């Protein structure tokens, strides 16, 4: 789909920290993302998954460290960067206009001419099964339909990298299945996927490698199969077993500071 060399990948995070009022929400993150594969970021609430996605997407600047797109197409041209990578939020904002107009709006912002906008919108409406809803107001769609529209808006832009923050949270199995189908189709078109999920089954189904996070740190980054066969990190082991994770004194693999409190915070 894209010419060789015309890429913004790999994405590299070096010693990324993020703190608010002296509280470190992300700590010493070092990650690299190359083209092709699908990555799932898993971990309990408050692990910093969504924050990490926002930092990689460019919505939030890290307090310390660097987030760098290193491909040839990423040489400081910010405008092109914004158009080449996209994000679907856990609660996507539906603009108060029709389904088709929502898709066209996303295309207009990256400078797609109006004839091509309509063409691409038509194509995406078919691909996402939103055709019969094309002229419905986006705000009256069901949760599953809204999530499909959110995917349609970014798919129309054909991004090189797509960040998905809990794409199927609060969806029933049928709606989850349709969303996963669309996400797989986007990947099949050559888009690099990085998603967060609470659903370990989804991580197994949809990811080639898994990043396990807890309390602002990355503890493990391995192939999905190897990870689920037996995580090396004891917190990850407990998480995969379905145990509730919170801090207890002396827990976890070494090299971390002791927790300051033991209280469970939801």
């Amino acid at each position: 789909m894209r010419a060789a060399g015309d890429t913004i990948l790999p994405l590299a995070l070096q010693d990324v920290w993020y703190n608010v009022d002296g509280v470190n929400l992300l700590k010493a993150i070092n990650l690299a993302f190359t083209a092709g594969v699908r990555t799932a970021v898993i971990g309990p609430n408050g692990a910093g998954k969504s924050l990490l996605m926002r930092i990689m997407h460019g919505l939030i600047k890290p307090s310390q460290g660097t987030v760098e797109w290193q491909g040839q197409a990423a040489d400081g041209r910010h405008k092109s960067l914004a158009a080449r990578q996209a994000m679907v939020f856990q609660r996507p904002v539906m603009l108060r206009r029709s389904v088709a107009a929502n898709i066209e709006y996303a295309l207009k912002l990256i400078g797609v001419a109006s004839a091509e906008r309509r063409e691409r919108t038509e194509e995406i409406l078919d691909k996402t099964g939103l055709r019969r809803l094309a002229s419905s107001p986006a705000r009256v769609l069901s949760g599953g339909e809204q999530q499909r529209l959110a995917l349609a808006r970014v798919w129309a832009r054909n991004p090189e990298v797509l960040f998905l923050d809990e794409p199927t949270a609060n969806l029933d199995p049928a709606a989850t299945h349709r969303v996963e189908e669309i996400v797989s189709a986007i990947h099949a078109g050559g888009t690099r996927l990085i998603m967060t999920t609470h659903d370990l089954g989804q991580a197994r189904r949809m990811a080639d490698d898994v990043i396990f996070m807890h309390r602002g740190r990355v503890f493990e980054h391995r192939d999905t199969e190897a990870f689920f066969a037996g995580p090396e990190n004891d917190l990850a082991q407990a998480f995969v077993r379905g145990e509730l994770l919170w801090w207890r004194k002396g827990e976890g693999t070494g090299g971390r500071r002791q927790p300051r409190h033991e209280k469970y915070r939801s």
Partner: protein
Amino acid sequence: MTDFSDAFAAAIDLVATWDDDLAEIIGLSLRVSLTAVFAATLIGLPVGAAVALFRFPGRSVLAVLLNAMMGLPPVVVGLIVYLLLSRAGPFGVFGLLFTPTAMIIAQTLLITPIVAALTRQAVSDLWAEYEEQLRSFGAGPAAALPTLLWDGRFNLITAILAGFGRASAEVGAVMIVGGNIDHVTRVMTTSIALEVSKGDLALALGLGIVLITIALVINAGVFWIGRVAEESA
């Protein structure tokens, strides 16, 4: 009490028989106030939205100022416009004092802060909800401005209505810059004031009934249109 019921009966009769003088006064009132609302909307929507979206020095001062100016006393606005437009004033050469144009200018000054302040609030609330999504799409404040005005259209209609309510109800500004000249600058509010001071309560009350009816009809119409439109958006 009989005075009142007599006056009321006479007022109903006056409205029912509908003479040309009455029509002229109502027509001028609507022309002045609607033109002022139109101008205030043209200025107030973008200004209010810009104050909500752009970060610049003095932004919060401007926001406070806009809110404070929502309560500008009409007579003070009238006085300022009077001074500006009077023969000796900076815009005296245009000879606008005691014309409907002067009244439109005064009412525009009076209600633009209302439209702008309410727009700022509405757009600011909407931006809180939309910011992350729009920035993710690649839209900065400049691209977000028209988007938010459109997506906030139902709240903004209320802002515009508030401006219309203020313009059509005020008497101080149009009295000072218009002068309440018969067949030239006489509007509903100024003639009500005049007729009351003359003791002609029937005419005053009749005009009052018309004024309230117009406000009701416009608000009901906008409410109904807004609801129908909101259901389909």
